[in-house]
């Protein structure tokens, strides 16, 4: 492969034309997605069902919830913090919206606001635990994930909420706009906003700086605790939007509906970190990751695979994604080190400074 021969080769690539290695590195995920789509369309066992417009609409609409949950996870991850609770926050917003509209007979708008409000409260709890008390984000949000799941079971009594949800609400989610389902458009809008925030605002740069080196971020004047808290609140906002969309899609709420999005979203996020901006969690990589997993599971189902394939594929994708991004990262680092050692000048004091004076 072209990119295995060190930094210098990338300069040659520009002269010789298309750098195959780099294209594969950046666009591997979208290419894999296209190949899968082509395969399922051509394979006679799956082609008819797979290419039906009902199926395509179904995939696009269904995965919009997964996609928004995954994007909710991306934002704190850019800061270097896990937020596992996003799926539960989506579940909370889902149940809250459905309960306010259905059980309490409020308007759709009030329901949506209530759902997002509840999600934000949960986000505030996460922000307090992780940014305020400086608890380990992974464990703290695993805790809030489980806790919220339990509370939803208690509140709903394990029952789904469907009564009193106006048909118009779910009808909105069924319709197309410019030939594509409306939930998919919502995903695109959310993705554009998330991408704008992360890539085009000072806030996004601060997130990346914290994710790269929190101590250095503090020393360049970034208010780390506040910024991390903002990341968790933004994450909760997106998760709540996903929850409301879930209410629209299912015409109600199911106590375990939201929480089931955790692993597909996680797989998508890590797959996403292997492409577009390899090695970094990024918005468009995540969107491609979501659809890669969805298309694969969908196609295999038409090829006769059973329901368990879903989990097997998600798990395998997660492990593979982590493996690829770690190995690529290590490979690039080794390449850089070799390049540095090659043209680095002789250091001033290779034997480290005598302990006459170092840290305090």
């Amino acid at each position: 492969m072209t990119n295995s021969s060190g930094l210098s080769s990338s300069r040659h690539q520009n002269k010789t034309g298309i750098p195959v290695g780099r294209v594969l590195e950046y666009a591997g995920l979208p290419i894999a997605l296209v190949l899968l789509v082509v395969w399922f369309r051509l394979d006679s066992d799956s082609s008819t069902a797979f290419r039906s417009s009902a199926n395509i609409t179904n995939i696009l609409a269904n995965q919009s919830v997964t996609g928004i949950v995954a994007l909710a996870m991306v934002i704190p991850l850019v800061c270097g913090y896990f937020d596992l609770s996003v799926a539960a926050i989506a579940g909370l917003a889902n149940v809250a919206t459905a309960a306010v509209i259905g059980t309490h007979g409020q308007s759709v708008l009030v329901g949506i606001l209530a759902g997002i409000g509840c999600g934000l409260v949960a986000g505030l709890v996460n922000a307090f635990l992780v940014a305020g008390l400086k608890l380990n984000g992974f464990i703290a949000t695993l805790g809030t994930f489980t806790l919220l799941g339990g509370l939803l079971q208690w509140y709903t009594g394990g029952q789904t909420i469907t009564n009193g949800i106006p048909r118009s609400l779910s009808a909105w989610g069924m319709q197309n706009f410019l030939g594509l389902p409306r939930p998919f458009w919502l995903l695109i809008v959310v993705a554009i906003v998330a991408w704008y925030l992360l890539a085009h605002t000072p806030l996004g740069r601060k997130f990346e700086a914290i994710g790269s080196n929190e101590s250095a971020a503090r020393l360049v004047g970034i208010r780390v605790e506040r910024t991390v808290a903002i990341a968790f609140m933004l994450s909760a906002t997106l998760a709540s939007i996903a929850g409301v969309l879930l209410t629209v899609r299912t015409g109600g709420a199911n106590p375990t509906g939201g929480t089931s999005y955790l692993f597909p979203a996680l797989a998508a996020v890590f797959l996403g970190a292997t492409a577009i901006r390899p090695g970094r969690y990024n918005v468009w990589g995540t969107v491609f990751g979501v659809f890669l997993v969805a298309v694969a599971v969908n196609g295999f189902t038409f090829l006769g695979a059973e329901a368990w394939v879903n989990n097997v594929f998600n798990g395998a994708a997660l492990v593979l994604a982590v493996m690829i991004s770690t190995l690529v990262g290590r490979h690039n680092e080794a390449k850089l080190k070799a390049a540095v050692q090659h043209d680095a000048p002789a250091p001033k004091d290779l034997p480290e400074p005598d302990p006459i004076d170092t840290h305090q």
Partner: protein
Amino acid sequence: MISPGSVSSAVAPHPDIIRIRSVVKTFAGTQALKGVNLDIRPGEIHALCGGNGSGKSTLIKILSGVYQADEGGTISVGERSVAAHEMKPSAAVELGVRTVHQDLAVFPDLTVAENFGLGGGFKTDRFGRIAWREQRNIAQRLIDEFEIPTTPNTTLNKLSLAERTQVAIARALRGSEGNPSLLILDEPTAALPVREVDQLLTSLRRLAQAGQAILYVSHRLDEVLALSDTISILRDGSLVETKPATGYTEASLVEAMLGRAIEQALPHTPHTVGTEPTVQITKLTSGPLSSINLQAYPGEIVGIAGLMGSGRSRVLRTLFGLEHVEAGEIRFKGKPISFTRPDQAMSAGIAMVPENRIQDANFPDLSIEENITVTVLGRYFRRLRMATSAARGEASALSRSFKVKASSVRAPMTSLSGGNQQKVIMARWMQRKPTLLLLDEPTQGVDAGARADIYALVRAATAAGASAIVVASDFEELAQVADRVLVLRRGRIVAELTGGQITAHRLTELSMSEGNERP
């Protein structure tokens, strides 16, 4: 057999003597050690002294097997001998060289018995279970032998630091009983509170009286003189001399460490210095610092010289809002300030380059451009988006004028050498045109060329009216760049030198020696 040097010929031969012969170590073309010979007798506390870059650390690392020397040298303990280029940590232990580093590598949450077990292996019964009773007996024997005032079941965090050091020593020497061995202590008292130093030194004397050979490395000259029997001095990678400790005074020790050549103080070009201080610190107390007074005037580079633990970084960190002011006052441009966060200090016009680049300054995953623009993010947020091309253009221009050697500012930070990374960090702060520049070891791990570039940048900033406060452990360097140097010792300013008075010699003497304090 290599003929013993003139030094050891004066010493009565002892069968268990430790001999270091012709140890050479080359790093990237420069010789850090140029053929060192050293004899250490059992029962002797042998101090190894030397300044910055003298090769002291390198020699210890070779003896403990961390580095391998160039071919040709040998290290022998009694009858056992190993080629110096074949030293490995395991070979060192087998040979009988046991090292206790400054950080001790003990486990504070575990008991004394467990700490001994983790260092020297646990005794297990036939089911593989740890034989706790036996383990405790072993621990008790070591405790008795080394006279440590503790019990096997005490957790280490209940012990004083001196006692923990004793535990680390006992653990290091475990298993060498009956065979000759060398105990290397690397700055064992550096982290100890004053009152515990004596406790440790007494225990070391007892060890030596029992026949242990000890190689003692410390920069505290008073301790070295009080404790050791013999002193060897390294300078520029060569062993300069070995003499009985009674033959030295603090002054002659410093003299020998720095060499006889009397340094020529560099002519200091007079700099226009404003009359209103940029920063004025009055009776500041914070952590190790007590009652510090300091002023820095526009156009001036003020140096702070001091050893580890003297509180030198604390001065800078307090000014930058990272440490709490316990007492005293800081005035910045005439107004009293009390920052609690770096961003407040930054908006007032203060910049700080921290001591530890990797830990506290680099963003390794980000590009050079992102590393530069991180302090001025707001500047490039135009028309609701980051002005990427403007930022890139500015970053490229900066990295050119700061002589950063990089293919492009889009390259990751990790692709740069240490010196170039440091220039990027300088650029990050200089573009803010700070009025007060705080530099903590700005040239650590930086090559000579980059060092000159960095100080030229600092000088350019002060020429434009800024003030700079520089902390550097390289006193030679401080003597070259600073207009005025304050010497910190144990949290107090003990001297202030200006102009021609500033020499590395004086700085070393003032920051190391206790006693003759001069205002």
